[in-house]
C-alpha cells in the first residue's frame, strides 16, 4: 500500500506541513524580524511546490523576486527603522473562540468541497505545452492573440506607476507653503 504512493506526493505533504507550520509561526511570532525570516522559509516552500508542479520558471521567479527581493527588502526596512524589530508586538484577538470556530468551519467547508472533487484526485500534473520554454512564456506575455497577455501586462505598468505617484504624494514631506 505504501509503495503505491509516488515519491512526489510524499515530498508534497512534507513541504506542505512545513509551510503551514512556518506560516503560523510567521503570523504568531512576537518579533517582526523573526516573522520575516519565517516568511522567507515559507516562500522557499512555495518554490518547491512549483518545482513539483513542473513550473521551473515560476519556482525561479519565486526565489528571485520574493525570497531574494521582497523579503530581504522588508528585513532591511525593519533593521533600518529604529527600534521596530526590538519591541514585542502584541496582537490580541478579542474574540478568540469565535475566530477559531469560524476558521475551523471554513477549513471544514473547503475540505468537504475539495474531497468531493474528482478532477483533483484523477488528473496528473503535466507540463502544459504552451509553457514549455521561456521563449514561449515571453511570446505569450507580449502577444496580441486572444490568449496573449499584452493587455494585462500594460495595465500592470500603469498600476505600478499610479501606486508610485500616490505613495510619493502621501509620504513626501510638506512644503513650506503647506505649513
Amino acid at each position: 500500500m505504501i509503495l503505491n504512493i509516488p515519491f512526489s506526493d510524499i515530498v508534497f505533504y512534507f513541504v506542505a506541513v512545513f509551510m503551514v507550520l512556518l506560516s503560523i509561526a510567521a503570523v504568531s511570532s512576537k518579533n517582526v524580524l523573526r516573522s520575516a525570516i519565517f516568511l522567507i522559509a515559507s516562500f522557499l516552500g512555495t518554490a518547491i511546490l512549483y518545482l513539483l508542479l513542473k513550473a521551473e520558471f515560476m519556482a525561479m521567479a519565486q526565489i528571485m523576486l520574493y525570497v531574494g527581493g521582497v523579503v530581504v527588502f522588508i528585513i532591511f526596512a525593519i533593521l533600518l527603522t529604529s527600534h521596530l524589530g526590538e519591541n514585542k508586538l502584541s496582537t490580541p484577538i478579542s474574540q478568540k473562540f469565535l475566530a477559531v470556530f469560524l476558521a475551523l468551519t471554513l477549513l471544514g467547508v473547503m475540505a468537504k468541497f475539495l474531497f468531493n472533487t474528482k478532477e483533483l484526485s484523477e488528473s496528473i500534473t503535466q507540463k502544459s505545452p504552451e509553457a514549455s520554454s521561456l521563449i514561449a512564456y515571453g511570446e505569450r506575455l507580449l502577444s496580441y492573440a486572444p490568449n496573449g497577455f499584452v493587455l494585462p501586462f500594460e495595465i500592470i505598468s500603469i498600476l505600478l506607476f499610479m501606486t508610485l505617484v500616490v505613495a510619493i504624494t502621501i509620504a513626501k514631506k510638506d512644503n513650506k507653503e503647506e505649513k
Partner: protein
Amino acid sequence: MIAIIPDILLLLFPFLMLAFKLFLTQAQTAHKNFAFAYLFILLICQNFVLIGDTQVYFSNWQIDTFGIFMREIFTLSALLALLLSENYFKHSMSEKPKLFHFSEFAASIGFATFGGVVVVSANDLLTLFLGLELATIPMYALVAWNKRDSEGTEAAIKYILMGSVATAFELFGFSYLYGFAGHLTFPEIAQALQTNQASPLIWISVLFIISGIGFKMTLFPFHLWAPDVYEGAPTPVTAILSVTSKSIAIAFLTVLVFGPLNAIHQEIVPFLALLAGITLLAGNLGALSQSKLRRFMAFSSISQAGYILIALLGNSPEGKYAIIYYLFLYTFSNYLAFFIFSTISKDQSETFISLNGLSEKSKFLAIALLIALMSLAGIPPLAGFFGKLQIFTAAAENKHYFLILFAVLNNVLALYYYIQVLKSAWIDKPAKEIALSVSTKQKTIILILTLSVLLLGFLPFLSNNLSIALL
C-alpha cells in the same frame, strides 16, 4: 476605431495633470479649470460612441453597450468629485485642514476611473482583477490625502488592511475558477461551466469571489469598514467612495454574473438574494441612530448597495439596464446631497446639528436637500423612485416577490431616517447663527443636479434610449 478614443483620452488625463504640475507650477487655478473642462469634454465624447455590437480591440479589450454606459457613469462621477473637491483645496472645511496637491488628486481619480473602464472592458480574469485593483489602490491613498488629519490616516489604514484581505479572497476565488476551467478568458470559462456545472470547485470560487467583492460593494457581513472610512476620509473622497468605488464593484459583479458565470446564474441567485436582503436591513438599521452626516451617508449607501444587488436577480439585459439606470440616478442624487453638505461645512463639522436652520438661511439649499434625500429614499416622481422601480421590475421577472416586498418595507424604514435629516434642516432651530457663503458656481452646480434629479426620472429620453439600447 472610434469607440476606443475616449478610453485613450481618459488614460491620458492623469498624465496630463501630472505634467501640468511639473511644467506649469505657477498656474494654480488653470489646472483645476483644465481638469473640469477635460473631463466634461470627455463625457461629451463618450456620448458620441455608438452603441450596438460588441467591439473588440487588441483582441481582449471589449467595448459593449453595458461598458459604454458604465464609462459615462464613471466619468460623470469623476467630474462631479473634482468639482466638489475644489473648495476643499481652497480653505479648511468641516473642521479639517485643507487639502493639497490638486494635480495628484485629480490624477488618482483619473486612474481610478480608468480602472473602472478596465473592469467593464475586460475579457479575462487577469485584466478584470487588475482593473479592480487599479480602481481600489488610489482610493486607499485618497482617504489618507489629508496628512495632518489623524482620523483620515486611521481610516486609510483600516481600509488598506481590510481591502488587502478582500483582494486576497478574490484572488483565491479566481484561482479556483482558473483551476476548474483551465483558462482565463471569459468565453472559455463559460464553455467549461456549460459542460460541467456540478463541480464543487465552482462553489468555493463563487463563495470567495462574492466575499471579496462584497467588501468593496459594502455588502452585509463585510460592510463594517465603511462607516469608519467614510467618516475619516475628506468629504469629496467619501463621495467618490460611495459612487465610483461602489459602481465599479457592481460593474465587476455584473460582468462576472452575466458573463462567464451566466450558466450557474440560477444557482447563485438565492445566495445573492440573501445577501441583498440582509444588506438592506443592516444599512437601514445602522442609519437610524447616526448624528454625523458622512457616517449617515455610509449607512445609506450600504442599503443602496442592497437595492442594486436585487437587480442581479433578474435576467441579463433587463438586470443590466436596471443597474445602469439606477446608478445614473444614484450618482446625481448622492452628489447633490454631498454638494449641499459641503456648503454648510465651511466653518463647522458635518453633523445633523450643522444643518439646523438651513431652511431660513437658504430656501434654495433646503429644497435641494429635500429633493436629494427624497430621491435617495425613492419617493415618486423623483429620479430615485424610477430607479428602484426598474430594479424591482427586473427581479420580478424571475418571481422574487418576497424579496421585493421585503425591500419595499425597508424603504419605509429608510424614509424615516431621511426625514430625520430633513427635520434638522427644516424644523430644528440653530443654537448659534453661522452665516452661509455659497458661491455662484456651487449654486449653479446644485441647481443643475437638482433639475436632473427632478426631471431625469420622468422625462423619458434617458430611460427610453437606455432600454432601446439594451433590450
